[in-house]
Each structure stands twice: as structure tokens, then as C-alpha cells.
């Protein structure tokens, strides 16, 4: 049986890194089990669990009936028995039938039982858009979960992060909502030597992925890469941008963000999810409370519009791209930008 100890990862895709992380978790702990629709023979619609049922058997990698509430509710009962379930929700938009079990049960049982029962459940959800899919296949529902006390919410942005974060999430005794930026599934990174764990951060920590002096961009998931492109483009204009990958959406590592904002004085938050009530609102408010006197400009949010996710031919107008993030950078720097035009009209 292959385990993380023996498996050598070279150039690996995001999906492959998740697969390797899941394999390591299954190998290292007999009570880890995977469940979900089509995750067995098919290996999941994105093939993230490819080969795992063949390797670990149908008792450890379960194809479940087509019932999201059932998948999560069953994981709750399994947790009472000491199992660490890793349910897969096939797509972001299909998590809602399970919403009641997640927010009313998974999130609250540790509290309800005064800590006697733990819920080490890792709910994997491919999320976000940009892949040309039909309705319900491109949503960013993270704010619902971040708003629910009792849950941890994380999102890796690279294969290396995916490899360790999935293992850390499974090892965590709290329930973790694990958002996978699906448009990165096929992106590759050289993971040689990753098993040694250098550069590995704890589950709740944010990471500075690019240091800079003038502006801080906070992002997560698929928009980390877009933010990095924006930072590179801004450099041409002599603007030095620091990019922070949040990694943990709940709790948020405000220490890292604050230190950065104290240095730059300017904050842009970028996410795909709708603006109103989104994570950007939480970050902007908290940073304003904590670092008001360091800020040179109000924090600015660059997000998806307040719309149901549009048909795929229009998603390019909905998803923040590099140019829209740069426009946000211009705003916090008081350079000419869309808002100044808009307000001046």
C-alpha cells in the first residue's frame, strides 16, 4: 500500500495532490473514511478520489446514495462512533440540501455536548467558477459557513497547500469545510520533497505569497493566482503589492493581515462570491477596527456582483479578473479608477 511515507511526488496537479493527501490520511488512520456520490469506481466527477476505493476497499471509500443531507447526517453518526469522515459534495451548488445537517448539527454538537463529542468531519466542496459550467456548478457559498460558529473553513490555493491542508483538516478534531478551487484542479507544481513538510503552515495560518510595500491584497482560492498576476502587472507601474493567501477563512488569521496593513496602509480584498455580506465585508470591518490609524484609504472590495451566478457566456463579466483587481489597487492608491469616474458622473 502506498502511503505518504513511500510515495514520491514530483510534478503533480492540484487534484493529484489532493488525491495523495487523501491516500496518506487513509493509510495513516484506520478510522478515516471517504463518502460521496460517484467517488468510488468513477473516482469522483473530478477524479480526486481516483483509485482510492480500489486501494482501500468499499468500507473506507463509500459511494453514497444521491442524498446530501444523508451523506452529512450519516457522517455525524459516524463521528459519534469515532470515525473521521471526509464527505465529498460533488459541486458547490449541491451543498444546500445538506445545509441543515452542517449548520444545525455538525457545527453545534461539540458545544451541545460540552465537548464530550467531537465532529472531525472534513467536508470537501469544489467551489467557484470560470470553468464554463451550467447553473449550480460555479458558486462561492463560503460566507454561509464562515457565519456559522463551530465550523472551520479553509481553502488551499496550490497543489502544495492542497496536499498538506487536506491532511491537516482530516486530523483536526473540529469540523472543517474544505473549499477546493476547482478551476485549479489541473494546475501543476513540482512537489518533490514535500513530504518533509518544509514550508508547511498550521491549518489556521494565512500565508504571504508575495511581499510588497504599497498595497496589501487579501485573497483566497482561485483568486490568489489572479491577485499575483495583478501584483506583477502593478509592478510595471512602480507599485509594490503584497499578496496574502488567507488559507483559513474561519478563523481568519488577522495577525498576518494586520502586520501587512500596518506596513502598506492600503488593503484590497478580492473574492468571487457576491459583495454583500461576503467575507470581504468581514475583513474590511475587522481591519478597520484594528488598524484604523494605519490606513491611508478605506479597504476596498473587488468581488463578484450581487447576482445569482450567471450563465457561463457571461461569467467573464462576473468574476473579478486581473484588471478589476488592479482597478481596486488604483482605488486604494487614489489613482484614477472606475469608481472615481462613476462617482464623478
Amino acid at each position: 500500500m502506498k502511503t505518504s511515507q513511500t510515495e514520491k511526488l514530483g510534478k503533480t496537479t492540484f487534484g493529484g495532490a489532493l488525491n495523495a493527501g487523501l491516500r496518506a490520511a487513509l493509510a495513516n488512520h484506520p478510522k478515516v473514511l471517504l463518502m460521496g456520490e460517484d467517488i468510488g469506481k468513477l473516482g469522483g466527477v473530478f477524479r480526486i478520489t481516483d483509485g482510492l476505493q480500489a486501494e482501500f476497499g468499499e468500507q473506507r471509500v463509500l459511494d453514497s446514495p444521491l442524498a446530501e443531507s444523508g451523506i452529512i447526517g450519516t457522517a455525524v453518526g459516524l463521528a459519534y462512533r469515532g470515525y473521521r469522515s471526509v464527505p465529498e459534495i460533488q459541486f458547490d451548488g449541491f451543498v444546500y440540501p445538506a445545509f441543515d445537517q452542517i449548520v444545525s448539527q455538525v457545527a453545534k454538537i461539540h458545544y451541545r455536548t460540552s465537548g464530550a463529542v467531537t465532529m472531525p468531519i472534513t467536508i470537501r466542496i469544489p467551489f467557484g467558477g470560470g470553468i464554463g459550467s451550467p447553473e449550480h456548478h460555479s458558486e462561492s457559498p463560503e460566507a454561509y459557513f464562515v457565519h456559522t460558529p463551530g465550523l472551520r473553513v479553509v481553502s488551499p490555493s496550490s497543489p502544495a497547500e492542497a496536499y498538506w491542508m487536506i491532511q491537516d483538516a482530516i486530523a483536526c478534531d473540529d469540523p472543517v469545510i474544505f473549499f477546493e478551487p476547482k478551476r485549479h484542479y489541473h494546475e501543476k507544481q513540482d512537489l518533490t520533497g514535500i513530504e518533509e513538510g518544509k514550508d508547511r503552515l498550521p491549518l489556521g495560518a494565512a500565508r504571504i505569497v508575495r511581499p510588497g510595500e504599497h498595497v496589501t491584497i487579501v485573497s483566497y482560492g482561485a483568486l490568489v493566482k489572479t491577485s499575483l498576476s495583478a501584483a506583477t502587472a502593478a509592478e510595471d507601474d512602480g507599485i509594490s503589492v503584497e499578496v496574502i493567501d488567507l488559507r483559513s477563512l474561519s478563523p481568519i488569521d488577522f495577525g498576518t493581515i494586520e502586520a501587512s496593513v500596518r506596513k502598506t496602509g492600503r488593503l484590497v480584498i478580492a473574492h468571487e462570491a457576491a459583495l454583500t455580506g461576503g467575507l470581504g465585508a468581514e475583513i474590511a470591518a475587522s481591519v478597520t477596527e484594528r488598524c484604523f490609524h494605519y490606513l491611508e484609504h478605506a479597504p476596498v472590495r473587488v468581488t463578484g456582483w450581487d447576482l445569482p451566478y450567471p450563465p457561463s457566456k457571461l461569467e467573464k463579466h462576473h468574476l473579478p479578473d486581473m484588471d478589476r483587481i488592479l482597478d481596486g489597487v488604483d482605488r486604494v492608491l487614489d489613482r484614477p479608477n472606475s469608481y472615481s469616474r462613476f462617482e464623478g458622473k
Partner: protein
Amino acid sequence: MELSAAGDDHFEQMLKPCGERVPNPLNDRWINDLTDADLASLYQDMVVIRRLDTEATALQRQGELALWPPLLGQEASQVGAARALQNKDFIFPSYRESGVLVLRGVSPTELMRVWRGSSTTTWNPYDHNVASPQIIIGAQTHHAVGYAMGLGMDGEEAAAVSFFGDGATSQGDVNEAMVFAATYHAPAVFFCQNNHWAISEPVGLQSQTHIADRARGFGIPAVRVDGNDVLAVLAVTRRALEQARHGGGPFFIEAVTYRMGPHTTADDPTRYRDQGELEHWKGRDPLDRMAKYLAQSGADMEQIEKDAQAAADEMAAVVRAEIKQTVEPTARDLFTHVYSEEHPRINEQRDHYEAYLQQFGDSLDGNGANGNGAGGSAGAAR
């Protein structure tokens, strides 16, 4: 994992796979009125529907559609059900009922625009009494029951029909819908196409009994019918609808059929499905069966075949021409219809986006410059 075999032949049948007509005392009277021309047109409908599927699959391969959920093999279920309906009956479909929808008058091109990614809205549901196709598995069964309750309260002699797959019967929603339908004696017909697979999962993973048996547990009369037998499906659905329309309450139909293609054009059935199974079902092809029956009953099969192909060719040509002329939506459409009344937040975001686009010499009504990360730095445009 032990899975029950749900594929045996305990079902209502009127045509054997060899085309032989078998008497069925319960159902015969429901199709006694069919003329030779009616029988030929049922066959023609199936040929046209099959072509719709072939054409859409080809258009997907050519990049005209982003995705397509094939219905190959399910023609008899869809044609039988659609032809049993009256215009006043309302349909709540899933994503796989393209055949039913087109027979109701929804234009194939309109339908395909959803799969192209050009629109979520196509037809007005009240134009054809057909709701927008539902992707969330099973959700539409509730809607059908609610609509049916409304029909009952209004004293209308009509029914609401929901279409869904075998996998859907695992969802809480479908089970809850049956509770409501039974409790309120709603004129709701549940039409389950048991095509044996929910993506990679065999029906035995969803149900240890025949799916029709479940409905009975909710107090809903149910029939298991050969879903590849267009006459039997038509008869049973007519029976169910008549009963529902005249105060008989809900009815559940399990049409036992088979999805001969992949789940969608993005799926690879060779990873989970045995080729032998497919071959077995090819031997029960719904079109062959009807063709054999027609031939055996002395119909001019050559002419019927010719007419059917001509109708299919025409539909295909129209779809091909129209889909290439699709007018794609503009950024302004993005902000339209989120609410039915003016909404300041949406208006503000729309106007802001207009200001943003103007920096690039673009506008909400254009479809040019701005693409996802396509351009250089915004600075260049200022």
C-alpha cells in the same frame, strides 16, 4: 457491497422487445383509440427525439454547446409520457427531459441555449406549461406537488407532472414531496425514469426495492412500466393523469428504461459500466420494438420510416442553422431580472461596471475588449 438487482421484468408491458403486442387487460382500454396514423406518429416522435439527441451531442463535440445530457434509449418513456399529457397539465422536468419538452412545443434551439451557456431563461414556462429544467436533484417534485395543490384548490381538472431519475428517489425532497402529495391528495403524477444509473451509481445503490414500491409506502398508487415500450408508457400515464385530474390524488410511475449514452458529454461510462449490460439493453431498443410492431401489423414501414427521417432531418437542419446564429447575451443582461422591481444595489453595481468598462472603451452592451484577465494592465487603457 451487496446491491439488489432492480432490473428484472416485473412491469407492465404491451409490446415485447420482438414487437409482439401482448394483451394487457388493465391498460388496453387506455390506448384503444389510437389510429394507425397515431401509432406511426409515436414512432416518428421517437425518431425525431433520437435525432435531437444525436444532433446535440454532435454540436457539443463541435464546441457549440458546453455540455449535453443525452437521452438515448429513453425515447419511449419521454414520448409516451409527453403524448399522454394535455396542454393544461403542467410539467416540472429535470435536465434530461429534452424529448418531453420539445414535444410540448419548446423549440430545440431554445432548449440548447441553456446547454450552450448563453442563458438560464429560455422559454416562458406559461407558454408551454413547462417549468425551467431543474438541476438540483429532485427539487422539482416539490414544485409539482405545490402546483398540483393549487390546481386542486382552484378546482381545475388538470395535473402536474414531475420528471426525475432513479437516483433522485434517494433525496429527502422527493420523499417529502410524496408526503405532501399524499396528505393533500394532490393531482400530482411522479414520473421516474429509472434508467439504471445515477452517473456512476447503479440503481441498486439507491434502492433495495423496486422504486415503485416506495411510493406505495406513502399511500400513493404506483405502477412499474416497461419504459422502452411506448404504448405501455402512454397507457399508464394516461391512466395516471385521468385519475389525478378527476380527484384520484397522486400517482407514481416508474418507467424502467436504460441510459445508453453517458450521463453527460463530460462523463466516461467505460469507467464504471459493463459493455455486456449495454449490449443487453440495445436488444431492447425502444425504436426497434415499435418499428417491428408496426411492420408486423401491416403498416407501410418504408413510408413511415421515410417520413420520420424527413421530420428528423428538418429538425436537425433548423437546429444547426439557428444555434450558429445565437445572439450572445451582453453584460447588461447580467444585471437584468435579478429582482422584479428596481433594486438600488443592483443598479449601482451595473452603473459602476459601465464606468469600469468605459475605461477600456467598452460598454455594457458591447461584447468586446473586457475578458477574464485577457488584457494587459488596466493602466494601459487609462
